Structures are given as structure tokens and as C-alpha cells.
């Protein structure tokens, strides 16, 4: 059975009708497997069989016939599904030419929805025609995008060749040497900073429906989101902070310096509000937090850090415009889990420096079941809501004097635990371990901002 899988042929296995009539008693024919010519071509698309429950448990008596039968049935169903030919209608297939010298795939014919989120237009000057160089823009794909489409079967990729195929009769449509999927992998992985781990992460996320773009543009034509720039603080804030620091220095001159053998002075007098909260506040005299400058020296002999944001990730629901991408929802770093250890503090600080701060998460609005049903009913029935009771003129003129009829829900305070768990800045690190991808979110902690006392 394995041999027939390794060498797929379009031709079905030939049957010899003469042999059948000669050897009616031989039962060898039935064991050779189903007669391919007789089976009608039922399976058009591969069907992925559902997974069942694993029933194997080691029994003292040895293997069980029932379990082996069930397992074999499931296994053969899976292999049949994999062996089914994958097809695509020739009206929905796209064509591209891969140029190894620029590591881009030039799309000659694009069809389908993939190109709404993939590919960028690049101006390439073709050869002089009609006495002037016409600058034409063409759609180009990065290596991972081209490879993804080829692997999906949505695109046929040719490799640009020197042969003058357009002159040969019958080969005008052919634009290069056709590439198999294996050849595409070999050509495209390794170019333009693409490693197999990065491609795997890209393909996995694309298959789930995300839009994945590169953070560092590989060429000036690649569209990037607006940069998150740390705006220089306005004059007012700078004045305020300068005033604050000078006041603090003046006050420190008056207050006694901290005695390191008795740091907390809980006097009976001259303490405006002595309760447990103020005791805890006065305990926080040691430096803590991410704003403290990091003074870690990196030895010059160690290699540059592997931790750099590589992909920008957009959720499928985010409106994405290829020419003007919005700010990314997530930033992804891809590393090889076998060769790279966990990020160190310097790596994380460098990553957090280029990321924006996230607002504290809003707790979910708890809607009771009765309210949910009412909302669903209101949404279904398109009847116009009853008109408001006509408010007296006086109430409309002086709304502040009268109690408001509809009390709007007060803004909910953010839950401290929710804020502590999500942190202020987030980076996603994908550790690829020989094919298995583990995604981790590293968030900048905000414990100093949410004290428990």
C-alpha cells in the first residue's frame, strides 16, 4: 500500500479481463484490493474524518481484535482522505512568476479573495518601449505569501527563466519553468529573512483567518502601519514635571533623610492619616517598576538578540486596508525553541520600548438572562419603539433641576486582577519546536499601579 502512495499516477491500475476468466477459482484477485476502474468516482473533495475516542489500554491478554479493527478502519479512512486528489477550479487559480534575484513572486493573474490582504504593488521599470521607459506597477508577493498560496493550491508558480519561451509557438502563455511545491519550498525558504519556523507561524495564522504582515518592511515599497512614535511631551506636561521634581527636592531638604536602620517612622503625632494604607505606602521606598533605567551591560562577544518583532497580526474582524494598514492588534516574535533560550530582561525591555501601552481592560458587561432575551426579542421585531412621553417644557429647559428619568449605568471600575493579569504592553512570542508552535504573551507588569493595600 505504501508504494502506491509514493508514486502517484493518474492512470488507474489496469485490469486484465482475460485473467479473470481463466482463473476463476483463484482467490488471489480479491486480495489485491478494490478494482479501481469499476468504482465510480465519488470522492470529489477530500473529506476529513472525525476523530473518535482513543480506546487503547494495555490488556494483559494482549491486543484486542475489536480495538485493532476499529483502529484500522479509522486509519484507512484517514489515508483514503489524504490520498484523494485535491483540485481547484481553473477559474479560481492564480498565476505567478518567482524571481529569485529579488526574492519576490510577481503575480500575473490574480483571482480570489487572498489578494485583498496579501501582496503589495511595486513599481518596476520595464525595458524601453516606444522610446520611453514606462514605469509599471505590478503586484508582488513576499516569499512566505507566495509559498502559502502555492501550498494551499490556490496559485501556480513559475520560476523566471532566461529561455525565450514567448517566441516558441504553443508556449506563449508559459511564463517560466513550472515549479512543484517541493521546489517552491526549496526556493523560497531562506530568502528575505524567511526561515522555516517563520513560515510555519505565518501559514498557521493565515489558515486561522488572521492578516499577517511584516513589521520591518523588506523594501521601501512595502506598506507599513503608522509608526507608534513617542510624542515629545507637551510644554505644559514638561513644566508640570519640572515643578514637581523641584518641589520634591525642596521638601526632601526639610524632611529628615531616611535612616537606613529605622526606615519607617510611625510617630504618634504629625501623621495626618495613620492607617494601614499609609503604612503600606510608606513601606514602598525601594525602587521598583519598569520606568527605572536598566543598566544591564551586554558583553560585546555575544550575538545580537534574536528577539525582534517580525510579524504584525490583525484579527479577522479588523478592517484591513492593504495600502494603509492600521495599527496591529498583536506583535509577534518568532524564535526557534531549540536553539534560543527564553528572552532575557534586556530583550524584553527592548521589545517593550517599541510597543504602545494598552488601556486597562474593561470588565465584561454582565447581562442577566432575562435582559438578554428582551434584547434578542427587540432585535428581532422591527417594530418602532414607543415614542417617549412628552417631557414638560420646564423639564426640557432645566434638565439639571429634575432627576433624570433614565439612569445611565455608571462607568465600571476596572477590576484590579484583570489589569494585573493583562499588564500594560503585550508582545506575543511564538516558540517553534520542530513543528510545534507555542504562543506566549509577555506583558509588562503593573503591580505598582494596583497596590492591594
Amino acid at each position: 500500500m505504501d508504494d502506491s502512495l509514493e508514486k502517484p499516477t493518474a492512470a488507474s491500475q489496469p485490469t486484465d479481463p482475460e485473467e479473470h476468466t481463466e482463473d476463476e477459482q483463484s482467490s488471489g484477485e480479491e486480495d489485491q484490493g478494490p478494482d479501481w476502474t469499476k468504482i465510480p468516482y465519488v470522492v470529489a473533495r477530500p473529506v476529513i474524518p472525525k476523530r473518535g475516542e482513543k480506546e487503547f489500554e494495555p490488556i494483559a491478554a494482549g491486543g484486542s481484535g475489536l480495538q485493532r479493527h476499529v483502529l484500522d478502519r479509522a486509519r484507512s479512512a484517514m489515508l483514503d482522505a489524504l490520498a484523494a486528489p485535491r483540485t481547484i477550479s481553473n477559474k479560481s487559480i492564480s498565476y505567478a512568476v518567482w524571481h529569485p534575484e529579488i526574492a519576490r513572486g510577481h503575480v500575473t493573474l490574480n483571482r480570489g479573495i487572498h489578494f485583498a490582504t496579501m501582496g503589495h504593488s511595486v513599481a518596476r521599470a520595464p525595458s524601453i518601449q516606444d522610446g520611453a521607459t514606462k514605469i509599471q506597477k505590478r503586484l508582488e508577493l513576499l516569499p512566505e505569501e507566495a509559498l502559502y498560496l502555492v501550498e494551499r493550491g490556490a496559485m501556480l508558480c513559475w520560476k523566471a527563466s532566461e529561455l525565450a519561451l514567448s517566441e516558441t509557438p504553443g508556449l506563449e502563455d508559459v511564463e517560466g519553468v513550472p515549479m512543484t511545491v517541493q521546489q517552491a519550498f526549496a526556493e523560497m525558504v531562506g530568502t528575505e529573512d524567511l526561515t522555516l519556523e517563520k513560515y510555519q507561524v505565518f501559514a498557521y495564522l493565515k489558515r486561522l483567518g488572521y492578516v499577517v504582515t511584516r513589521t520591518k518592511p523588506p523594501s521601501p515599497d512595502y506598506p507599513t502601519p503608522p509608526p507608534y512614535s513617542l510624542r515629545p511631551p507637551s510644554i505644559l506636561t514638561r513644566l508640570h514635571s519640572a515643578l514637581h521634581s523641584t518641589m520634591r527636592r525642596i521638601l526632601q531638604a526639610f524632611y529628615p533623610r531616611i535612616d537606613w536602620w529605622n526606615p519607617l517612622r510611625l510617630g504618634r503625632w504629625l501623621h495626618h492619616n495613620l492607617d494601614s494604607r499609609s503604612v503600606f505606602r510608606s513601606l514602598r521606598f525601594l525602587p521598583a517598576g519598569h520606568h527605572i533605567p536598566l543598566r544591564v551591560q551586554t558583553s560585546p562577544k555575544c550575538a545580537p538578540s534574536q528577539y525582534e518583532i517580525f510579524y504584525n497580526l490583525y484579527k479577522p474582524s479588523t478592517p484591513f486596508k492593504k495600502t494603509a494598514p492600521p495599527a496591529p492588534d498583536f506583535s509577534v516574535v518568532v524564535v526557534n525553541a531549540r536553539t534560543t533560550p527564553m528572552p532575557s530582561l534586556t530583550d524584553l525591555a527592548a521589545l517593550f520600548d517599541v510597543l504602545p501601552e494598552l488601556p486597562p481592560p474593561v470588565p465584561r458587561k454582565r447581562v442577566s438572562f432575562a435582559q438578554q432575551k428582551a434584547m434578542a426579542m427587540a432585535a428581532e421585531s422591527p417594530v418602532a419603539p414607543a415614542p417617549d412621553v412628552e417631557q414638560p417644557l420646564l423639564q426640557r429647559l432645566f434638565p439639571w433641576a429634575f432627576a433624570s428619568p433614565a439612569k445611565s449605568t455608571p462607568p465600571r471600575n476596572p477590576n484590579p486582577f484583570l489589569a494585573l493579569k493583562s499588564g500594560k504592553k503585550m508582545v506575543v512570542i511564538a516558540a517553534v519546536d520542530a513543528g510545534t508552535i507555542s504562543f506566549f504573551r509577555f506583558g509588562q507588569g503593573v503591580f505598582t499601579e494596583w497596590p492591594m493595600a
Partner: protein
Amino acid sequence: MSLITQKNNRRGGGNKGGARRHQNNTLYAHPLPLVLDQPPPTWSTHILGLFGLAGTRVLNPHCEGVFDPATRSVWVLNAKDLAILWTRGFFGKGDLSRSEPSWRTRQISAKRAAAGHYMTAEEVREKRRAERTQFKRDRAAAMAQAAAEAEAAFAAGCEVQHTTVIPSGATWKPQQPLADAPPPAPAPEEDDDRAFEAEVPALEHLQLTLQEAFFLMWTLDCLTVLDPATSAPMSLRDVWTAFRSVQCAPQIPIPGTLELDLYAGRFDNPFLVHYAAYHYYRSLGWVIKGGIKFCVDLLLYKRGPVFHHAEFAVVVLPVYEDPADQESSPFDLANASPFSWTWLSTVNRVNSQVQKTLILTYVTIPARSRMSPDLLSSPACLTHYSVREVVLRRFIPARMRD
């Protein structure tokens, strides 16, 4: 429910819900051993308060402990101090108990139970666990029997009939009937109680880690540490030196050579590094307990272990400012080099299975090149360490799509 103070509680579980919560709130009302005694609010105190003369008294319990270099801990032997330190801030761990020093109470209730022929909470728990194991064995045997039946039916080629019933938790009954229920015990008399209490000596002590002891001594000034050899109270300076030097291996001076103190002027003393992290979380109001059970260093509780499970599991990662310090370090600090993804995934998985969030706390150790070794003679060197934390969680793309 505190076992120390509940004397006449025969019911194992106690009241859950409002009464128990109220009980816990009154018992564990103070977050620190220092009690702030507010004067009753009257007009005069209010006016004085506006001028900053509040008149709040600070009641200091002045507990006592003995330093034990062999176990690197401070032992609190006095029962009153033990109760104070545990109920106000959850400091320390009873050495004969899981966490709360309740050994004596458990022995007394065990004796009372033996005398009155009823079961203690621990015995009830053991019985329940034994029943559950028996149920699981019965269920496994029934499942194996059903599989054997299906196998036999398959081998014969006929349709399988399910005749064995696999027991479920709700319908299973223990096979052997229990011994007849004992006659109701008479109410324990006062003499019996006093006899029990006289029989059981107070063998348990509270063990404070060096960080907890230093925190109580240095910031709150409510603990006196006695020297184990002389039983004399140690001054804060003595304690500062002793706690740091106990981390070092004893050095044998080599005759004929200059004594090189490997440990002099080292800022990466494990006591200092862990104290920086401990002080940081304590000053934010968290109750800190050990985290060895979950592969981490510390567990953070919002108010205490009796109120709610820990929300956060903290791993302390020291970061050397100067890599040369790390190479020349005699201490070999744990987690000083970034660990592999396998270990990080392991710790993360262990903690997410118990619904705790993993926090990586980085403590930066100042470089020896820019610090003078004299700084180590006083706790002022702690200002040169900085603590920052990073929250680690899994990211599941299939679920984060919306």
C-alpha cells in the same frame, strides 16, 4: 477556619458562607503585626487630625524569635507570639503542620475524638478518600468487563450486548457496610478537656524565613531575634551580617596564603536578592507564602491563604548588571541565566492548571565595578536593586480571533 482558636468545634467543615467569612474577617483583621489604635472619633480628634495630630497609637507586640543557622530560619517558640504573627499577616509556617501552626489543636481534637468515639475531620477525609479509590477500582473493573464482552462478541461475529453496568459516582454504594454507628458520645466535660490539654505539650514552633524575619525586624520593628548560642538579643547590625553570611559556605583559611574572602563585597547574596522581591510585594499589600509546590518561588495572596487561593505565582529571576559578576559568583543563584522554553512551558502549564498566573520578577543586581563594598554594611544597598515584573500567559490564536 482557624484550628487554633476553635476549641469546641465538632463539625469538621464549620460554617461555610457568611458566618465563616465574618469569623475570618474578625480573626484576621490586621494585615500587619502592628495594630493601629484609632481613637474614638469625636470633634476634638477631628480638629486635631486636621492639624496632623491624630493621636493614633501604634501597638507593637514585640515578638521574640531564635535564629537557627542550620535551617536558615528564625524560630518563634512562644505561643502568644506565634498566634500574633500568624493571624496578623500570615507570617511563617508551623513546622509540624501544613501552614498554620495547628499541631496541638489537632492532637487535642484527635484525643477528644478517640475518647468520644467520633471521627475527626482528618478521619472523615481519609474515609472519603478510601471510598473514592474503591469506587474508581470498581468502575475500572466494570469498564474492563464491558470491553471483554464487546471483544467476545466481535470475535464471535455477532452484535455486542451491553449487560454490565458501569457505576457512576451518584449510584455507587460502598461494598462493605461500615461498622455500626457508634452510640452518640456524651458531651465532653471540662475536666476531660483540661486533661487533654495538659497531656499534649506545645512541641510546635513557627518558622519564619530570613526574609520575613528581616522584614519584621527592620521595617516594623516588632521582632527581636535571639542569638542561638548566647540567647542574647541580636542587634539589627548583627542580624544584617548574620543573615547574609549564613548563605555562604564556611571557609577554611589556608595557612600561608592571604585570606581571600570570596564572599566579601558580593551584591548577589541570595538573601539580598530574595529580600528585594519580598519587600516589593509586601509593600504592595500582598501576603507572600512559599511556592515550592508549584515550581515557583513565591505565591501571592490578596489577603491571606484562608480567604482565597493564590492568584499569582512568582518566579524570582536575578539579572546581573555586569556579566563578569555572574562568572565570578560563588553563590550560583538559581534562575540567573534565562531558562529553556521547555522549562518555561512546564512551569506555565503547572500553574495554569491550578488557575494561577505566572509572574516573572526580575531583580537587577548592581555591578561591583560601580559600587563600593562598604555599601553592603547597611541596608542602604537595597536601593540599588530594582524590581520589575513581566506577566506570562499563553496565547491561543484560535480563541483570540474576536
